[in-house]
């Protein structure tokens, strides 16, 4: 992709990601966020965070499937935007929904599995956000950094569980997220298996070749 194309794409990602926040702010000012604005805001922020997190998780599969290199550049941006939305989502829960009723919120975190996994996902993403800079990659070293950042898969699974477990029976939207997450993880698993088999096949081929027959001097 041309550098101009990348700039356009990057701008598009920024606009698309911040759009839901803008719609919420406008709706808040116009008092037009359903009869239960806090519930609507919490849900919209959470859903946007999940979409961005899955989008971030979708960049590597794009590279695997289509051999594009550009998606990797958006992995971090999308991940950080997801983290931003999760933080706002969490702050709204604390400040607007429960109005700093710490005891009640603490009980909820411990007693309600969907809240437990949601908070856990947020906590897991903190070190990833902190170590998202080039400098941190260098300081940690590529291998350790990659290992740490595998936590994003755990956070993705927890995020989808959070959505699945809070939904009432009859609501089907969370299942689409389960399917998307499953597909994204399946692509990675397939790629990982393929490479493993590739390596094993290479080694096996090496062995089958056996010792190179020594040219017979008598021939």
């Amino acid at each position: 992709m041309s550098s101009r194309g990348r700039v356009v794409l990057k701008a598009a990602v920024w606009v698309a990601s911040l759009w839901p926040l803008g719609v919420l702010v406008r709706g808040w000012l116009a008092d037009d966020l359903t009869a239960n604005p806090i519930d609507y805001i919490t849900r919209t922020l959470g859903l946007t965070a999940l979409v961005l997190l899955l989008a971030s998780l979708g960049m590597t599969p794009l590279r695997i499937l289509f051999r594009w290199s550009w998606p990797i550049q958006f992995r971090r941006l999308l991940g950080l935007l997801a983290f931003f939305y999760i933080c706002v989502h969490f702050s709204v829960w604390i400040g607007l929904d429960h109005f700093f009723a710490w005891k009640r919120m603490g009980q909820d975190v411990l007693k309600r599995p969907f809240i437990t996994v949601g908070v856990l996902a947020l906590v897991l993403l903190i070190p990833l956000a902190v170590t998202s800079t080039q400098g941190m990659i260098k300081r940690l070293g590529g291998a350790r950094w990659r290992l740490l950042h595998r936590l994003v898969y755990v956070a993705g699974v927890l995020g989808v569980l959070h959505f699945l477990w809070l939904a009432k029976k009859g609501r089907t939207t969370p299942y689409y997220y389960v399917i998307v997450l499953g597909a994204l993880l399946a692509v990675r698993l397939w790629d990982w298996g393929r490479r493993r088999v590739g390596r094993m096949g290479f080694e096996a081929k090496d062995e089958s070749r056996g010792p190179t027959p020594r040219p017979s001097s008598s021939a």
Partner: protein
Amino acid sequence: MLIKRDQDRKLRGEDIPASEITAERLYLDRRAFIAGAAALALAPSGVRAESHLAPLKATKNQAFTLPDALTSYKNITSYNNFYEFGTNKDDPERLQASLKTRPWTVKVEGLCAKPTTFDIEELLKFALEERVYRLRCVEAWSMVIPWIGFPLKDLLKRVEPTGQAKYVEFTTLVNPAMFPGQKRGFFGFSLDWPYTEGLRLDEAMHPLTLMTVGLYGQVLPNQNGAPFRVVVPWKYGFKSAKSLVKIRLTADEPKTAWNKAAPSEYGFYSNVNPQVDHPRWSQATERRIPEVRRRETLMFNGYGDQVASMYTGMDLKKFY
């Protein structure tokens, strides 16, 4: 004694001074409204809705008023759980036009001497009264609604329940052409249609249990369960089944829609109870639409002094 009186006040929802929980303007409006309604004892209700539904004449029942501010007509009619239309809160208002409420009949049958099929026009001729009730949704939000209707006991007396009748079962219309939410979705599951609900006979005969045909001085909007629904104010909202076509007296506890869908989350009784949590969230507080801050949920939704005696000796954690 003082504590007991305090508890009683709490059960009635009188522990919070109205001026504290209600914006003063609304508070004054309400006082004007009450005064107006009292002056026009037999005239159409003093409250007007900003819609074009048919007005409905009803006597304001002074025994069922509340110090709480009324929830706006717009909020009452745009934020609904009515899975027959769809699972989103705005689906009922958006899709309500497909429901046709004429012709409409309601069968009242089962263990009674005179099973009868009532036409909706006959039901509208019962002695209609306006009552302001709190509505507490199991999802921890609440509203205050001026309903119009008549006590279920007036209807049940007409059909003369037999001695074997112990429960009442309510059944909502099934018609996927009118209720798009009843079509099978992509994943193939929703509630089992028809939506059924139930009450014990003493709960059904309780003077608070209201067969409802209108709100805010007009006939019920479709999204609120037109043309005929039940309202049971001390229970979570899903107990108050909408768009009824059948009321049946039974000997056994009826199967109820949400209990079938998620038995650990929704019991047969489903009395509003701040001490018994929903498995996935606390019921201790609620958000009164459209307030920002949560408020404490009242035992039996504030109707304890009228209904608590029906549950004396019952373990309300077990019979949730």
